[in-house]
């Protein structure tokens, strides 16, 4: 899956995902990626978020929605993403996945669990080229 969150020069936030899902899934199965609030979520008044990982588990917790709501309550993107991941981990300790979060003002962060490192990519006006940021899970 790729998950993306963007804010344009007008301050409009959008988010999205595209995926071919899990290998050898039962035909007809979909994961979290196309579910609003799960795979991705966006709200101009706050920002946006996107998630990736074990979609059968993730879609039960709407992690992208939760991350955005945490940012609405004043959490930093890193903290918001961590809260969304922790909500899942508290029920499924062996779950694997990650959440990225971005505020409407361009502050970003991520959190992950169950994989060694999780890379995500950022591009903004402060960088000449895109930057890959890897976080330890």
């Amino acid at each position, binding site marked *: 899956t*790729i998950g*993306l969150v963007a804010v344009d020069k007008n301050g409009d936030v959008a988010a999205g995902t595209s*995926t071919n899902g899990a290998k050898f899934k039962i035909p007809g199965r979909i994961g979290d990626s196309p579910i*609003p609030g799960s795979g991705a979520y966006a709200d101009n008044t706050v920002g946006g978020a996107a998630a990736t990982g074990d*979609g059968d588990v993730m879609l039960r917790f709407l992690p992208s929605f939760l991350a955005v709501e945490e940012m609405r309550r004043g959490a930093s993107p890193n903290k918001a993403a961590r809260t969304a991941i922790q909500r899942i981990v508290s029920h499924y300790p062996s779950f694997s996945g990650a959440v990225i979060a971005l505020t409407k003002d361009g502050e970003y962060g991520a959190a992950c669990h169950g994989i060694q490192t999780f890379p995500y990519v950022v591009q*903004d006006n402060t960088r000449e080229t895109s930057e890959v940021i890897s976080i330890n899970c």
Partner: protein
Amino acid sequence: DSNIPIVITTWNFENSTIKAWDILSEGGSSLDAIEKGATVCEVQQCDGTVGFGGSPDEDGETTLDALIMDGRTMNVGAVGALRRVKSAISVARHVLEHTKHSFLVGDQATQFALQMGFKEETLVTPDSKKLWMKWHNEDHCQPNFWMNVQPNPNEYCGPYRKLDTHGKHKNFYKKSEREQKRIVVDEFNHD
């Protein structure tokens, strides 16, 4: 201080980020950035986890899921289990812009895409067929997502029939779903 425009993307798919940034830096909309950025991954089959020719299902077919959400209007366009159409994120954008719905799935999503002018073509490639053949013939359909069925899905391929978990087989699977080992998620296998 505001740091916009900006785009962030999951995993190490820089080409998608670069495309999205090109659109944003030229004054384009965040919706366009999301659609065009994701399209790059669909075309380049990022790590086999996006687009055609990856993650075959139990029948060897690749199907696609995509979502796009507009944070200004809270409008959503999404497709699930989209069959035989490569441009999943663009079909989702068409759901957003040309319907009052949010989410179309399966063959009906394909029919919608065809009405919108998208091309119908197989999403199976020689690589995805080879991957499926190995899983089915050499790995005996392991791993898979079945439970409480017979024959034992941990050893055999289907077709399966349900196991009577309240009768004589009630102790066959002692672990609850929560306790069972989950499929390994890594950079090459994830939603």
